[in-house]
Each structure stands twice: as structure tokens, then as C-alpha cells.
């Protein structure tokens, strides 16, 4: 169907429209899970710190 990579990227003259659509779509679908992972890691770190702080308090009381 495509005779050369250049022809593929030219998309029959629709390169701007096709690649802007697919590019932004790929960007969103990659960034969203990364943001979610960052949110998950942040809450796990907070919970770890809280746990450590509690342990510390208990040791000081003893």
C-alpha cells in the first residue's frame, strides 16, 4: 500500500491532520497512566511516613 516511508508519513497530503490526531491521542494515553502512578506512589509514600512516625512515637514513649 505504501511505496516508501516518506509516502507513509505524508499521508496523502493529510499529514498535519492525521499525525496531530494520533500524536495527541498517544500523548494522552501515555501521560494519564503516568500521572495515576505518580498519585499512587505519593499516597504510598505518605502512608509509609505516617507508619514510621507512629513507630518512632511508640519507641520514645517506651
Amino acid at each position, binding site marked *: 500500500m505504501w511505496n516508501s516511508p516518506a509516502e507513509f508519513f505524508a499521508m496523502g497530503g493529510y499529514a*498535519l491532520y*492525521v499525525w496531530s490526531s*494520533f500524536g495527541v*491521542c498517544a500523548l494522552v494515553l501515555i501521560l494519564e497512566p503516568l500521572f495515576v502512578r505518580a498519585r499512587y506512589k505519593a*499516597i504510598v509514600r505518605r502512608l*509509609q511516613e505516617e*507508619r514510621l512516625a507512629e513507630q518512632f512515637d511508640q519507641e520514645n514513649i517506651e
Partner: protein
Amino acid sequence: MNEVNHLSKTRWFNWLKLSSPSTFYPVAGKLIPIFWILTAIFGIAGLWVSFFVAPVDAVQGQGYRIIFIHVPASWMSMFLYLVMAAWAGLGLVFNTRLSAMMAQALAPVGAWMAFLSLWTGAFWGKPMWGAWWVWDARLTSELILLFLYLGFIALQASIDNPRRADKAGAILALVGVVNVPIIYFSVKWWNTLHQGASVSVTKAPAMAQTMLWGMLLMALCFWMYSIAVGLMRVRAIILEREAHADWVRQLSEVKI
């Protein structure tokens, strides 16, 4: 007879158990990689069909290939809204914590899908219609869907008490459901610039078989993606909202 009763009882029990955040959290963790693998498989197959198998369109040339992400994103934006509203409604009726969290986890995925639908639509409309945007019934109702998602997210974020936020969000989500059939039937009810449905249950599809396959594979990819990201986000929300529960303190990832 006794055995049957016993079986149904245990099944019911298991489902109830799964509806508690503490049992759902590890199950979700195990499911996430499976849905990522499915996303990748359908994504690779779908992109391959979209770019290397589906023939060029007689009227729109290569520009029509935007359909392979535009239609799946639009479908998912509507479908996710219904799923989100169903979870929110369940939470409202049965007062279950997990269902409200599920609704909260799905809202951003749906909002992104609505955004992608509008974005790819603009980049398709410009070369084919000569305009990035028109105030057409289909486009306008899809924009309202995006605002409904954003409104749901903003409303929940603005109320400090999570239980009250769940209730307010659920009512907004349920009222907004009326917009989904409006989007779907807009091309029939009004004289729109946007074309009619490409795929219909009652008619043979008005496109080449391979084009249809590309679209369905991409739709499956978006679907699996939505589940994977939804489960990832619901796990974060569970930890945030159950932070003081004992089972969270006992998790291996928290204990270090």
C-alpha cells in the same frame, strides 16, 4: 437442594466480599497487568490494520484514517459516562463506598476520551468540512458531555466530606445521563453536518470490512485501556480514603 443453597450462598458472599475496598484492592492489583497486556495486543493489531491493511478512502483519501481513533474515543466517552453514572447510582442507593470510588476513578478517563473525541474530530473536520468547529448538534452535545465530566470532578473536589461529595456527584452524574442518548441520536434527530452512524446494529456497515475491523480493534484497545487506568486510579483512591484503616497499615507496600 441443600447443596444448591449452599453454593448460591457462598457465591453471594464472595461478591459481597469483593465489594469491600480491602478485598478489592489486591484483586485490582492483580488485574491491572492483564488489562495492560490486552491493551497492547489490541492496540498493535488495531494500528496495524488502521495503517497497513485498511484501504484508502475513495472520497477522503488518507485523511479518513482519523476515524480509527475518533470513533473509539467517542464510543468510550459515552460508554464510560453510563458506567460511571451506574456506579455513582449504586453508591447512592446502597451506600457502598467502593462504588462511589469507582465512579470517581472513571471520571477522568471519560473526560480524556471526550477530549480526544473533540480533538480528533476538529482535526478531521478542518480538512473535510473546512472548519475546526461548528455548533452542530453532535459536536455541541459531545462538548456538553466533556463539561459534565469536568463538572463531576470539580464538584467532588470542592466538597470536603467524601460521603457528601459522593452523593452530590452521583446526582449530577445521574441527571447528566440524559445527554448520552442525545449525543447518540443527534445525527438522526437534527440535520447535522456530522455524518450519520458508520456502524449500526440493524443495517450492514457502510464501510469496507477491514475498516470496520480496524475500528473494532482500536475500540477494544481503548476499552481495555480504560479498565486498566480505572483500576490503577481506584487503587490510589482506596488508599487515600482508607488511609486510617487497619488493613491499609498492614499492606506490604506500606510496611516497607
